[in-house]
């Protein structure tokens, strides 16, 4: 069953009609519905083009959070071979909001790290909706240590509403864990590529996204605060999230303009959730391209490149 977003309601109507017609035809072979249903299909496609061609910031947020959007584990399953998950922070626990381990990308061994949100009630709870605790960041640090020691590139897939705001997470040093993870990214002597595949939620995302190359899917977002959070603080009204989303400049296109994202990976028509395989393959090709561009680069040059990149960020604002 397709999940429709609120702005997709007219589309749901048309696609529903088409499906209904076809169902009728199956029961009643004499009825000729081909022409009619094809016309509806065409209309639906037109509407998709129209809707997705001009998504505003808030709609982008909705698409980025779409429950059927491919998640980290879908990417790992399709793009990587020999995936061997590695668990635990060796201090306290294994955080299921963060998955990662060794894997091969096009035959080359890499370390892959990502946030996993889960895709049904049970798995969402298990993965804590992709909100990592300090253990998640410390696991990532450990994986980066491993990558650095054995010269393996790091690929990170970012998809989190943010770090988990919980009592235990605070007591165990949520902020320190995030800060150290960001620092570890900066220290890596191996190439690092980040893809924001859904939501890049604040510090929880930065901790995995301080990479040589930061790529974003066409309808992904990356923001300092959720539009709802920003609206309730600055507008004193959580309902003003549309205004907040627009003001925050959180779309992939905004980040590209600001020079904070290196490339945008186009999504299939109607968003990654409509054609996950196509979206995942496009991401895979871009990761390979980015890693290829850094092949053979010396550790110090990679570190310097990362430093220069982040130090130079935002010099010109939107005029960039």
């Amino acid at each position, binding site marked *: 069953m397709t999940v429709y977003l609120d702005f997709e309601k007219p589309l749901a109507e048309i696609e529903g009609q088409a499906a209904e017609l076809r169902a009728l035809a199956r029961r009643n072979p004499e009825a000729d519905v081909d022409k009619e249903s094809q016309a509806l299909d065409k209309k639906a496609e037109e509407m998709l083009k129209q809707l997705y061609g001009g998504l505003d910031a808030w709609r982008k947020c909705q698409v980025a959070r779409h429950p059927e959007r491919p998640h980290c584990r879908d990417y790992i399953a399709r793009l990587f071979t020999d995936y061997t998950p590695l668990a635990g922070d060796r201090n306290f626990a294994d955080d299921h909001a963060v998955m990662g381990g060794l894997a091969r990308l096009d035959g080359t061994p890499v370390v892959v790290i990502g946030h996993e949100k889960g895709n049904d009630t049970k798995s969402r709870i298990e993965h804590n909706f992709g909100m990592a605790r300090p253990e998640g960041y410390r696991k990532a640090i450990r994986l980066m240590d491993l990558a650095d020691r054995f010269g393996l590139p790091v690929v990170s897939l970012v998809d989190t509403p943010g770090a988990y*705001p919980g009592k235990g997470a605070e007591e165990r040093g949520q902020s320190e864990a995030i800060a*150290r993870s960001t620092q570890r990214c900066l220290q890596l002597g191996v190439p690092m590529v980040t893809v924001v595949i859904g939501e890049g939620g604040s510090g929880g995302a930065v901790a995995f996204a301080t990479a040589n190359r930061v790529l974003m899917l066409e309808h992904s977002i990356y923001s300092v605060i959720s539009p709802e959070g920003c609206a309730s603080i600055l507008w004193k009204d959580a309902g003003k999230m549309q205004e907040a989303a627009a003001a925050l400049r959180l779309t992939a296109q905004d980040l590209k303009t600001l020079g904070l994202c290196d490339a945008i990976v186009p999504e299939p028509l109607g968003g990654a959730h409509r054609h996950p395989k196509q979206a995942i393959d496009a991401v895979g090709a871009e990761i390979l391209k980015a890693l290829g561009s850094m092949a053979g680069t010396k550790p110090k040059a990679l570190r310097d490149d990362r430093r220069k990149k982040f130090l130079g960020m*935002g010099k010109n604002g939107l005029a960039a």
Partner: protein
Amino acid sequence: MNWITNYVRPRITSMFARRDVPENLWTKCDECGTMLFHRELAENLNVCSNCGHHMYIAPRARFTSLFDGGTFTEVKVPEPVVDPLSFRDTKKYSDRIRDARKKTGEKEAMLVATGELGRMPLVAAAQDFNFMAGSMGMYVGNAIVAAAETAVKRKAPLVLFSAAGGARMQEGILSLMQMPRTTVAVEMLREAGLPYIVVLTHPTTGGVTASYAMLGDVQIAEPNALICFAGPRVIEQTIHEKLPEGFQRAEYLLDHGMLDRVTPRGKQRDELIDILRMLMGLPPAIKADLPPPATPEPQGDPVTLSEPAAEETAGLPAEAPKPAEPAPAEAPAKAAETPAKPAAKEADKDAGKTRAPSKK
């Protein structure tokens, strides 16, 4: 005329009248409610003399009490694009900045300065909570990078006093990018082998805590400072339970292994001198190595040297908070036998602006 009109009424009137004294003369302690006279309060570095509550202190006042002789030179911070996203909520961001400048008299939420601390060169940075909640935007990012670069150039340690509500939302994603940017600054110090000490003050939260404020070689906090990633209200809304007493306060973090020390403001200067000298491989500070104070009674206004860069040299000559304790009386007597110190060649030049470290 009776006892009530002659005695009780005037007393009552005077009791209420006392609450009406101009705000700038008396400050009420937010914790215990004691009315504190402004001079006394400033002398005590804005710490309540009754309950020890640490109140807001402006970066300039903090530096005046930190650096030798209350003398420091501001480090120029590269100006970023103002209002890079043309942000507007219920109010324009550019207006908010203008208001904050008017309110604080400062350009932005962070002040960076160089000077000497116990005759050792030092770079210090302090965040101003009164300037848009000390929030971290491009300017604060630039300030921290400039502080680190200055420290590396001068081979001096960096002490950073943090205070912030988090990242500056009005700069959107650009404020978030200050997290990795400031972490690069920390990396520069690390690579240069220079100490980086963070003094967390009330409150330090959000993206600031999750970047440079938690990456110090030594982490010190002021008593009862709120230090967290997510604020207590957000957590209560998430987990639907009441948080324990003192949760996310400095002492709580110390108990949970997240800090090295909790140090009252009045003792920080001496502690920083001790720690930094050890980390820099310098001999212990000799309490008697100072020339005689300019005035026999060090309670007077701190002497500000007429430095070449006079306009950049700050200090609050009249209102400046004094050192927590007067200089030891024996200091002048022993000054003659001072052994050669790393900073000795500058001793004469600096004589006026060096303050006697207080007695242990």
